[in-house]
């Protein structure tokens, strides 16, 4: 196709109703912005990149796509930087929730490089191929028309060749162009693309032109300014979590999050409630988040990645490591944006090389397994309105809400629901049991949303979606002793299990249940009636310990581990643990000493959860999303990471 054919292509796409987004000069960079004609393209311009540096320069020729990549990627068109995902309104006295799916204007992406094409494919795995699809992303993706562009020149920061994501666009495009001085080679990649191609001024490519393409691609490979050895990289990174290089990089990293903003695959998002000052409507908005920001890993007072070192390590080990376990691919496409746009020029290829040169033994990571998508394609954010039928104050700051839910609601012990109040937010709360068809949640007042939830009254309504996550292995409790070790609010997710075991006829000599429960003080003990009821069961032993004695308390004072030391720890028993992580870590050390097989230990973890579908990235724990791979884990899944500071 002659160079002039590009104008024909743009006008054909416009005529077909596509909004055109392509390269355009703005703010001293080449941006992906709305364009109309060829005149909007950066004809005759290129970009010169180095760590922490990006400059536009004139080219000697008039190529339209003679640059590498700018700060933006196509992510901003598919996974919008800011988007309303849900609206709530007050109708006849009760809140109603409506998921929002904004109208989609079909968009043609003009000039998608192989690395960015790979990046779109990676985000598709996060948002579409997952168990639950993101409806808005999916709609925009389906309607997009992709005009890819092959690279015949590489930049100083490019390493797509190492990541296997370029420089040739192989598939997943509608049309693919390769630009030369006076012509374009055009390839079609879909029926949609072929239909457009039939209207372009094309002629069959000559053998010389075809060899120009392979020579161009080869030249590009040779020109790449960066390279990376990806052999065994995920396992190597997780085997080197305490490598001194993390401290070195943290000395210069500003934790600004630029790298995650410019990265075409970074997908973490935050969810905020946006309420106007009137009553009624409130919106839930999601926006790009960064694992470099402190709030990313924060839950009611705990920040799991408080140091810059923790956050840089989270980013790098995720991007190049745990991404493989989560999505079956690296999270890096080798575009080099994070190097150019880092204000201090940190280069992940250099960081990785430093670790590789002086590396400790690799550790095995979980293998990726594709998820079966939920077929009914319900909206991920769709909430059910649930009515509170009963409220029980458990302690000064803990309340159990019983909710009336539709008959088709089924959950397993250990799973959680997302509970929401309009204008305030949504929080993950474990189901603490059910009685008479009512689903119970035991909630501690630790923040704005939980404060509001714990002050609700009977007949009030709230939004609920779920259940999510993994369950306690109830099937494994039969025919063996079961030890349940909990502390504080950690008893709530295990109450259902206790109730279940209490109902069974168990042999007190071989199938006894031992509950070891710690709390701060007597007034903080949950479910006291039930504790006493269980105590009367001949097959159940209840042991309670407090950190602080109150007058008249004649029970144990001391830690859960001290109490556990006094208990028989049968090697064939099953151990279920839920409580503060420091407690769980001490308990696991004790169980290891008692030679309990790690396979017989289960624990429930907690992290920052926003979406409950493995999309928002906030609850990551190494290769896991606590919301869907957990919260209940079998200990061998976690042992390579558990207790490691900063995850």
């Amino acid at each position, binding site marked *: 196709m002659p160079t002039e054919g590009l104008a024909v292509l743009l006008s054909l796409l416009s005529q077909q109703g596509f909004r055109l987004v392509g390269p355009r000069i703005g703010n001293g960079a080449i941006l992906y912005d709305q364009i109309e004609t060829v005149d909007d393209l950066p004809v005759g311009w290129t970009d010169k990149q180095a760590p922490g540096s990006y400059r536009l320069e004139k080219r000697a020729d008039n190529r339209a796509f003679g640059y590498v990549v700018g700060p933006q990627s196509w992510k901003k068109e598919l996974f919008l930087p800011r988007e309303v995902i849900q609206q709530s309104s007050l109708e006849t006295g009760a809140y109603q929730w409506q998921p929002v799916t904004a109208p989609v204007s079909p968009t043609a992406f003009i000039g998608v490089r192989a690395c960015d094409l790979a990046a779109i494919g990676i985000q598709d795995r996060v948002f579409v191929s997952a168990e639950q699809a993101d409806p808005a992303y999916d709609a925009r993706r389906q309607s997009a028309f992709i005009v890819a562009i092959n690279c015949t020149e590489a930049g100083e920061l490019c390493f797509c060749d190492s990541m296997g994501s370029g420089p040739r666009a192989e598939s997943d495009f509608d049309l693919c162009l390769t630009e030369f001085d006076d012509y374009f080679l055009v390839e079609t990649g879909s029926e949609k693309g072929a239909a457009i191609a039939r209207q372009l001024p094309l002629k069959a490519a000559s053998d010389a032109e075809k060899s120009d393409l392979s020579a161009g691609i080869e030249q590009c490979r040779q020109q790449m300014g960066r390279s990376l050895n990806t052999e065994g990289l995920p396992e190597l990174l997780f085997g080197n979590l305490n490598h001194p290089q993390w401290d070195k990089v943290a000395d210069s990293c500003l934790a600004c999050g630029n790298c995650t903003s410019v990265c075409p695959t970074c997908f973490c998002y935050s969810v905020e409630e946006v309420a106007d000052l009137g009553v009624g409507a409130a919106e839930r908005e999601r926006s790009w988040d960064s694992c470099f920001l402190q709030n990313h890993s924060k839950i009611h007072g705990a920040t799991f990645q408080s140091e810059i070192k923790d956050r840089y390590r989270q980013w790098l080990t995720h991007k190049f490591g745990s991404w493989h376990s989560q999505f079956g691919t690296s999270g890096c496409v080798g575009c080099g944006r994070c190097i150019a746009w880092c204000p201090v020029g940190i280069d992940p290829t250099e960081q990785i090389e430093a670790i590789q040169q002086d590396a400790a033994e690799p550790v095995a990571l979980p293998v990726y397994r594709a998820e079966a998508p939920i077929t009914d394609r319900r909206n991920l954010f769709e909430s059910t309105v649930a009515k509170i039928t009963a409220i029980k104050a458990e302690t000064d700051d803990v309340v159990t809400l019983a909710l009336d839910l539709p008959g088709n609601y089924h959950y397993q012990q250990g799973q959680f629901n997302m509970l929401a109040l309009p204008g305030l937010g949504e929080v993950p709360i474990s189901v603490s049991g059910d009685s008479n068809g009512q689903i119970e949640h035991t909630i501690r007042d630790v923040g704005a949303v939980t404060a509001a939830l714990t002050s609700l009254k009977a007949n009030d309504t709230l939004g609920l979606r779920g259940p999510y996550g993994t369950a306690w292995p109830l099937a494994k409790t039969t025919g063996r002793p079961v030890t349940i070790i909990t*502390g504080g609010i950690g008893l709530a997710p295990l109450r259902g299990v206790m109730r279940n075991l209490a109902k069974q006829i168990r042999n007190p000599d071989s199938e006894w249940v031992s509950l070891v429960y710690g709390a701060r003080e007597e007034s903080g003990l949950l479910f006291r009636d039930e504790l006493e009821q269980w105590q009367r069961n001949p097959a159940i032993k209840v042991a309670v310990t407090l950190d602080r*004695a109150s007058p008249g308390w004649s029970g144990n004072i001391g830690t859960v581990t*001290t109490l556990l030391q*006094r208990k028989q720890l049968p090697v064939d028993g099953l151990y279920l643990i839920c409580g*503060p992580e*420091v407690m769980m870590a001490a308990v696991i050390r004790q169980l290891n000493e008692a030679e309990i097989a790690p396979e017989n230990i289960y624990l429930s973890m907690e992290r920052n959860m926003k979406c409950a579908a493995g999309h928002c990235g906030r609850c990551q724990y190494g290769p896991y999303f606590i919301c869907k791979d957990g919260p209940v884990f079998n200990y061998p899944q976690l042992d390579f990471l558990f207790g490691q500071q900063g995850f």
Partner: protein
Amino acid sequence: MSNSAIRIDPGLTREMELFRELGEEDAASLAAIASLREVAGKTDLFSQGDAADSLYILVEGRISLAIQVPGRAHAESVVSTVSTGELLGWSALLPDRVWQVSAHVIKPSRLIDIPGAELRQLCERNCGLGYKIATRMLAVVGQRLTESRVQFLDIFGQTSE
């Protein structure tokens, strides 16, 4: 204090971890100076500030350890409880021999009472035995220290923002 001293049955000492660790000969010499005591519930085993004259092994029962906090409404705080099989009374081996805590008998308990003066003499004469007992004491003190630290961390409490 309602209690009675009884000579120790070797069968009982064999059940106790400390004696098991010592080996037969040392265990016998320790048993020779020890006696078994039964104490009723709701009594005090010893009081903070008094002379620490015995080391105890709790054969059965529950004893709480409390520290006086003058000026507090309840003037005393229980900091730990000791249960079956556990040691208490390591102050009896310290140079000043003063109880740092009070010990309240919560449940009727049986104890092995090892008089401090005789124990110290025994340890001095038999350094090997003394070392084993000192190591054991260190483990008890270490355990209490860890426990206190964790209690101090207030892990079940609400962390401040």
